[in-house]
């Protein structure tokens, strides 16, 4: 079964067309990655999927068309988006950020449980739970952004460049976490400039070039594709 089906998706900013009619499907439970250079339309695609941006085309999520559904309602359907630049609220504490992630949930006990689980998974966040989130390091903020998105118990997680601006060691940590989340059954749509990293963990992948998909396949296929190697892997 497909978690997401994207048909002829277009995104435009005024006269500038950032995404020019792309189609792809993401299978339930897999890690799907969109790689591409800066400005290829990766972030615009994710923003369309989460409803942050108006778009053309059709998005089918869990077999239902969701095009008319606003961003905040999509979260309720199990679609969570960790945005570019992490989007943490620096003026709120770590704990408050996490609690806001559970906004739509009514099951207090379940929320408390997930909060505890999140703080256990990210011990750094527990140490800093009463600190303003703006005082966290970049890596900690990324952890917080992911932990916060998980508070909504998503079925599908959209991740926008989780490695951006992080030291290699932290990038490894983040990718380990992404894999763990996926292993628990969450479908992942990962957008990355760091093609090498993303393709290594992806079940399937597509290359986005100036708003169009130029290549698609499994992660392994793209990793060994000479065109990808030449353009994105520095080989």
């Amino acid at each position: 079964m497909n978690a997401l089906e994207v048909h002829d998706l277009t995104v435009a900013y005024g006269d500038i067309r950032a995404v020019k009619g792309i189609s792809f499907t993401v299978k339930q439970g897999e890690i799907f990655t969109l790689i591409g250079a800066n400005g290829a339309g990766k972030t615009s695609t994710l923003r369309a999927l989460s409803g942050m941006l108006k778009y053309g085309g059709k998005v089918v999520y869990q077999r239902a068309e969701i095009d008319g559904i606003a961003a905040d309602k999509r979260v309720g359907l199990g679609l969570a988006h960790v945005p570019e630049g992490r989007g943490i609220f620096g003026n709120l504490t770590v704990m408050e950020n996490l609690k806001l992630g559970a906004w739509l949930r009514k099951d207090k006990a379940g929320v408390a449980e997930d909060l505890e689980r999140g703080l256990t998974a990210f011990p750094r966040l527990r140490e800093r739970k009463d600190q303003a989130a703006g005082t966290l390091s970049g890596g900690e903020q990324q952890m917080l952004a992911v932990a916060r998105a998980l508070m909504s118990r998503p079925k599908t997680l959209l991740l926008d460049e989780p490695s951006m601006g992080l030291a290699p060691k932290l990038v490894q940590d983040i990718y380990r976490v992404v894999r763990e989340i996926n292993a628990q059954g969450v479908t992942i749509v990962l957008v990355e400039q760091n093609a090498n990293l993303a393709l290594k963990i992806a079940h399937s992948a597509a290359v986005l070039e100036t708003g169009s998909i130029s290549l698609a396949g499994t992660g392994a296929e793209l990793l060994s594709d000479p065109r990808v190697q030449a353009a994105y892997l520095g080989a």
Partner: protein
Amino acid sequence: MDYFAQQAINAIQQGSIYALIALGYSMVYGVLTMINFAHGDLFMVGAFACLLIASFFPLPFIVILILVMLATGFLGALLERLAYRPLRNAPRVSAIITALGCGLVIENVVLSLSPYAKPMPPLFTVTGYHIGGLSVSTLQLMIIGVSIALMLGLDFLIRRTSFGMAMRAISFDAKTVPLLGIPLNRIISVTFLIGAGLGGAAGMLYGQAYPVIAASMGILVGWKAFVAAVVGGIGSIRGAVLGGYILGTVEVMTVAFLPSTYRDLVAYSLLLVILIFKPYGLLGKAPNQKV
């Protein structure tokens, strides 16, 4: 000394009213980074709503207060829905001009209904107490008490409830808020409702203290409270309260010790000096620097 203490009570009364109004400016700025210049007129509507309700229904003070807050609150939320929301993504100056226009419309609607200033009947029997050389009236205690209770309530709401967390989140980064499933528009509506409700409460209290009300009463008081909000740090809730009390104190003390015509000169000179040294206001923060 007694004279000073007496003036201090007056200053707290005056400051409480400015603080209540300033909160509305600051809350709206926090969520929309715009100045709701119709806010002074919502303050005026609060006074008229009180007069209207009180002249038809002899209800207890607290019930009238709640009705006045609801009436002005809904008017504020309506203003946001009809006039400001369509301009959410327009240049801020358009929204601000719209707010000025809305204020004028409200003012002139009230003026057309009530062309002359109207006396405001007292809502309860005011008695004075003398403690030593000090005199305090139940009205002053009521104004100060109600204001402080409302401000403590607001502080609790903003710091301890999920609505308050969402409101603070919007002031930091509104576009991320829907990604957590939070209904942005509803939080903004409620923010207007509360801010306008507090302004309406201030109008009602002000009408009790200075019992002649007119359609134009919101202009000067509204501007002053706006200045108080800026001096405290626009967008900061505690800053608005601080700014309100500073302005009230400076005004009352100037009149107490200098010729009364110096009031606005001294008050605004001092406030301008504060802004030279603290351009974001006393408790305000520089806008988020996005990397």
